[in-house]
């Protein structure tokens, strides 16, 4: 069996396609794209935050002090517009924002009703939203000043104004740790990535070792050697499992390395909470991947062996991929928790457990329950695969 395992592994490692899809893509190309896009987005956001915005006022004298607030801020330039066609002025890039205070509008602190001003701009992208937020923030600051002035006219203290503004203020005293809060979001994401990697890592070797051998005509030759079919299929399973598990581990390590490189060895931003995850929890995440990877390896190998040709095998892989992810998506449904019942649902249980491990709220008893159930399912599927491989109508299906 070891002989077949070593040979299959050697062939996989010499296969450029498998190397590209299983190692190069997840370890170099995807992280570089991921972090590259992140860096690009960050630089574009910073650019939008510091971009000089041209602001024009119409009837500015009605709101004393508003235009001063803008000129006092960095990266704002007050401009004058020539025409009344605001749309043309904006579309021709003569101005970015036009603040129109309609004729007859009173200064808010002198008025007893809500005054309405018009803000003209062209906003269609996220970067435009950043610009408009900068403008609205200054208007909101002016609003606050006017609110205080209005309150003063009615002899209201700052506290009275606060009460009018918001009768009840909630001060959050959240006892959830940062790890729990971040884990609630990051946990499912990490589970999703790990499971996706496990599935994609198993797919190409499964195709190669099953239907690939059929198509090349080497399977028949292999079956005529004194090696038992059981040992042959176990060796093939072992290679698929190794490739899948290796892909997950190598990809994870590569992401840590790339994070370090892209942050110049500094803090990992939102990923700081990961440092709170204990070695035992990380080990358990890896342990959970073992039966999970086995499940996918068995299913994909069976499908690949059953297929008549590569085209048919690839057609089987898509639904397997989708069916593999349905239980993961179920795990992301709000309110889904790891308990005795959910610990019995394959894949969902692993996704839930990974989420809890990342959050630090895991019930270790449930981990044992799910490990037990997943190992039984993985074992049953592996047994099925070995029996399937012994069937003549599967091996010589035409």
């Amino acid at each position, binding site marked *: 069996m070891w*002989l077949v395992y070593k040979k299959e592994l050697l062939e996989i490692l*010499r296969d450029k396609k498998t190397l590209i899809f299983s190692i190069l893509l997840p370890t170099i190309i995807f992280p570089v794209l991921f972090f590259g896009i992140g860096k690009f987005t960050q630089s574009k956001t910073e650019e939008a935050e510091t971009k000089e915005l041209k602001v024009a006022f119409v009837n500015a004298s009605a709101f004393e002090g508003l235009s001063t607030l803008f000129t006092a801020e960095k990266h704002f330039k007050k401009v004058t517009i020539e025409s009344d066609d605001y749309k043309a002025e904006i579309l021709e890039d003569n101005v970015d924002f036009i603040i129109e205070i309609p004729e007859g509008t009173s200064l808010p602190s002198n008025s007893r009703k809500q005054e309405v001003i018009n803000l003209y701009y062209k906003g269609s992208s996220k970067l435009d939203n950043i610009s408009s937020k900068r403008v609205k923030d200054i208007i909101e600051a002016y609003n606050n000043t006017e609110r205080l002035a209005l309150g003063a006219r009615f002899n209201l203290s700052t506290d009275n104004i606060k009460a009018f503004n918001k009768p009840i203020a909630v001060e959050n005293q959240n006892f959830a740790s940062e790890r729990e809060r971040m884990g609630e979001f990051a946990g499912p994401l990490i589970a999703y990535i790990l499971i996706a990697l496990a599935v994609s890592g198993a797919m190409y070797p499964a195709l190669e070792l099953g239907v690939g051998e059929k198509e090349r005509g080497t399977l028949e030759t292999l079956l005529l050697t004194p090696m038992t079919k059981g040992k042959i299929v176990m060796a093939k399973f072992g290679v698929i499992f190794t490739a899948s598990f290796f892909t997950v581990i190598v990809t994870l390590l590569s992401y840590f390395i790339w994070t370090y490189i892209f942050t110049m060895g500094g803090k990992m931003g939102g990923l700081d909470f990961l440092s709170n995850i204990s070695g035992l929890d990380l080990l358990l995440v890896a342990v959970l991947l073992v039966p999970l990877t086995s499940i996918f390896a068995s299913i994909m190998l069976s499908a690949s062996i059953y297929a008549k040709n590569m085209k048919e095998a690839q057609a089987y892989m898509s639904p397997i991929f989708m069916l593999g992810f349905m239980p993961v998506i179920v795990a992301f449904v709000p309110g889904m928790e790891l308990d005795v019942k959910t610990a019995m649902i394959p894949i969902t249980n692993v996704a839930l457990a990974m989420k809890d491990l990342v959050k630090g709220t895991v019930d270790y008893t449930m981990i044992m329950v799910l490990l037990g159930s997943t190992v039984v399912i993985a074992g049953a599927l592996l047994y099925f695969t070995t029996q399937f491989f012994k069937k003549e109508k599967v*091996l*010589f299906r035409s």
Partner: protein
Amino acid sequence: MIEIKGLAKSFAYDKKEAKKKKNKVATDPREGDGVFHAVRDVSFSCDKGKVLGLLGPNGAGKTTTLRMLSTALEPTQGEILINGHDVTKEPRYAQKLIGFLSGKTGLYHRLTVRENVEYFGRMHGLSKQVMDERIDKIFSMLDMHTFAGKRADDLSTGMMQRASIARAVIHDPKVLVFDEPTTGLDVISAKTVLDFIESYKETEMSVIFSTHHLHEVERLCDDVCLIDLGETKFFGSTQEFAAQTASGNLYDAFLNNVNKKEEVA
């Protein structure tokens, strides 16, 4: 010595196929109720040092017969004996004795020629010393030393076929099974295969050689077994086979023996 007696093999139709066949009148006598009797009654034998030509039209049951002989398929009925050992009861014994080569059997493309041959040698339990000796002998015999380090996907068809032969005989088999080994080969590559089979006539090997090319049978085979519609239609010496017709040639003898309906169809 190989002895095949009353061999039969049936395959159950899958649901789709069974449904398709249900409302149709069977045109092939091998079509049964839910099953296809690919091989119904095949018998022949091949002595040591002899080459047996296995003939028959496409779909006659030759490949199925050879797959049963080489243990890939299990017979539904009948007996296959190699040196008196029942292949179905002792498949490991048979696998050690048989070398199999067909036009379809391939090599591992990302392994070198030597790695391919070594892999199968190890599968048959050869020690390193024995393997090195065998590889040296076979590679010299087939003139393969020049491309032994090349990957299989860099080989020409002829080189590939020589490598396949080396792979099939690395464990020094006593029975060689060739299933249409020259199909799709050019004249030079086919000659390599035929020369190799001829060289084995001098040894104590039993060679079963399935082919559509009757000139190959004329050149190599001592005996002939003609299968049609899953049954042995003729088994005897090549001379006896040719002598069945007035012309005395194998083509007429072949056409004389195969099912006429099949031919018309």
